[in-house]
């Protein structure tokens, strides 16, 4: 890509943001935290994938999904199924009445592996499935909803119902899914123990790498015409339609993309935490994921990452010291972000910090910086929401 093309894809402010985030995630945190805390950060980052998807869907496209846990869960379950099959080798499960199948299946009198588990013996299939299955699912929901112009609040409620349905199904079909306990006791990946500290470091960096990959995709989408179309649709859907666009297709695309991000996050979660359970599929976690996005700033892809980190870090700290106060703090956070800081941390940053940073840079480089001459101007929405 030409320099100019790169420049328009990655204007200076974003370049700085990328660099700072990379510095924090790749250098600062691994050096300053022990593996226990770093593993926690890795877990928080998996939620950042979901929040990132929500920035595109909700912040840009105005589509609020309260069922992102569904996709997070699908991705996580796909990964967990692969690992569980490896952990359930005939040698490991010799005491079962049917060796070679996951323990929970044995408890539920299954005597052979169900057909839809079979392909998960293959890592290649699993990796593809992690992205493709949730995307197809999102595509089906998207086509059904957006082609019929269901949107806004209705879409939110319906996705919530989908989350409820999937939770009940997973819990009810415990012979196939592990039920309420989920898929637990995952041990190795091709014989390599995933519970060691070394493995945790590897997975942390893999997670960071995938996150940057997704951030890159998100940045590309954001800076493309499609990104501007999303904003346009959020404001004046009819106008976009009467400019000759099939609006539903764009919504479906961004919803699928957000779901694929969430699914990758889910898979990373399984790798780092070591199990997957229906508690991440339901309504409550799905709504919490929205708040990560809102706290970070619903229009900022970097905000999504910081939001997920900050809220979860606060949750861990608060619940360690004042478990009773945690719900108060969380509730206040929801209300405060919505009412006082609709653009979240990113909004505060652009308002108070960015000018100073720019001054600082200007002073160092000796160049004047007031033109902000990028062709694509910054969005400075006030609570921009349909």
């Amino acid at each position: 890509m030409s320099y100019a093309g790169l420049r328009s894809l990655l204007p200076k402010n974003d370049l700085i943001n990328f660099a700072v985030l990379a510095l924090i995630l790749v250098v600062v945190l691994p050096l300053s935290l022990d593996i226990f805390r770093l593993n926690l950060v890795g877990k928080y980052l998996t939620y950042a994938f979901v929040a990132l998807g929500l920035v595109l869907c909700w912040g840009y496209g105005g589509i609020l999904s309260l069922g992102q846990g569904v996709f997070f869960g699908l991705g996580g379950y796909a990964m967990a199924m692969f690992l569980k099959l490896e952990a359930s080798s005939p040698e490991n499960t010799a005491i079962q009445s049917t060796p070679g199948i996951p323990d929970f299946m044995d408890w539920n009198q299954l005597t052979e592996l169900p057909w839809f588990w079979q392909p998960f013996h293959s890592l290649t299939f699993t990796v593809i499935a992690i992205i493709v299955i949730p995307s197809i699912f999102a595509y089906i929901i998207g086509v059904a909803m957006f082609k019929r112009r269901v949107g806004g609040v209705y879409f939110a409620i319906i996705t919530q119902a989908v989350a409820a349905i999937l939770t009940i199904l997973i819990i009810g079909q415990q012979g196939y899914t592990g039920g309420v306990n989920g898929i637990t006791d995952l041990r190795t990946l091709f014989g390599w123990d995933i519970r060691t500290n070394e493995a945790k470091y590897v997975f942390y960096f893999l997670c960071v790498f995938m996150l940057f990959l997704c951030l890159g995709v998100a940045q590309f989408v954001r800076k493309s015409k499609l990104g501007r179309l999303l904003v346009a649709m959020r404001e004046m859907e009819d106008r976009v339609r009467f400019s000759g666009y099939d609006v539903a297709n764009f919504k479906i695309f961004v919803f699928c993309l957000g779901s694929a991000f969430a699914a990758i996050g889910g898979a990373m979660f399984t790798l780092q935490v070591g199990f997957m359970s229906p508690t991440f599929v339901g309504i409550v976690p799905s709504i919490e994921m929205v708040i990560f996005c809102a706290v970070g700033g619903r229009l900022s892809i970097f905000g999504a990452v910081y939001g997920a980190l900050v809220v979860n870090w606060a949750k861990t700290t608060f619940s360690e010291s004042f478990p009773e106060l945690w719900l108060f703090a969380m509730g206040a956070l929801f209300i405060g972000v919505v009412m006082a800081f609709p653009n979240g941390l990113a909004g505060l940053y652009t308002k108070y910090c960015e000018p100073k940073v720019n001054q600082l840079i200007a002073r160092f480089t000796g160049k004047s910086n007031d033109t902000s001459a990028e062709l694509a101007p910054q969005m400075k929405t006030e609570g921009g929401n349909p």
Partner: protein
Amino acid sequence: MGTLKNAQAGLGGRLPSLMKGIASAVAGATMVLSAAVNAAPATSEVNTTGLAVTDDTVTVGILHSVTGTMAISETGSVQAEKLAIEQINAMGGVLGRQIEYVQEDGASDWPTFAEKSRKLLLQDKVATVFGCWTSASRKAVLPVFEQYNGMLYYPTFYEGLEQSPNVIYTGQEATQQILAGIDWVTKEKGAKTFYLLGSDYIWPRTSNKIARKHIEKLGLKVVGEDYYPLGHTQFNSIINKFKLKKPDVIFASVVGGSNVAFYKQLKAAGIDMTKEKPLVLTISVTEDEILGIGGENIEGAYASMKYFQSLTNDNNQAFVKAFKERWGDDIVIGDVTQAAYLGPWLWKAAVEKAGSFDVDKVREASPGIELTTAPEGYVKVHPNHHLWSKTRIGNAKTDGQYEIVYETDELIEPDPFPEGYQ
């Protein structure tokens, strides 16, 4: 957090020889002092794996949900464990060391349980953990305990199908609780037909599976089996099915908020449980749950479990008295609360038998540990890490207590992987 032993070694390595002499003299003095007071063995002897044990304290972990949906159930366990620890401390502690605890909140969230157990084991270096309530939370922490070789005392009656070297199960596994109950209703009440009802998750499903096998072995009939999602609140349809199928026994393992709705609606639909037509046999309603259901709504139902607050033995009377003094007069004590209370005592006995806090030694010492002071009477740890215990049948009264109508003669052997019931 290093132990004193490690600290001494560290000092010795780094300081010049003069200082070294002083350091070891100080350490020696401390040791003499503590030996004089408590006759406690040296820390270096009782703790070879770097646990949080000092000359006069030992740190343990308590890991339950204080927030979230499970807080309702887990509060009693936390209270019982704290009470037991305080009582042990008042008696001089374990191996001359006072027990200190670090309490963590699992927040009804399974990864949080895993995260907190990792913290307790890695950061706090606790000697043991008392905690978890749901099977899901136990399953989530199990790999952590096995990886870092921790010890968990788990208080809830559960579905079995598990036997970890790192867990002592102080509640009953499913067969202990269920078989005696079904035998009793068959023998004493002449029950022939059963309807199995549960919330939709692993414990009720496994329990009902065991119940069904047993019922069929006895040559009797299961006329229906049904599951409702957790948190379901409308049971009129199932009540109609009862009326249609007319089972002798409704075997219920409904949990949580659903429990309240189920018994209230059963009563309202004109099924008077005191008439025992049909008879309700539950394995999920302890005195704790009756608080929410209301005694008048469940009067006449039978429960099959190992402990009821109304047990009249001396141990229990002392326990109930102490519990009320510590946590308030209006508190009730259920099966799980009692099982949680056993945890610290069983651990103390095992540590003293082993003469060490080391997890491996405690594990080795655990099988065969007896507790004659248990509120439920006499219990004994089986080599499979579950407890031998009696099973009792209680009949619910309006005041929210159970009247004990039956007690097995012998201790029942725990059998987490029951042959022929899977």
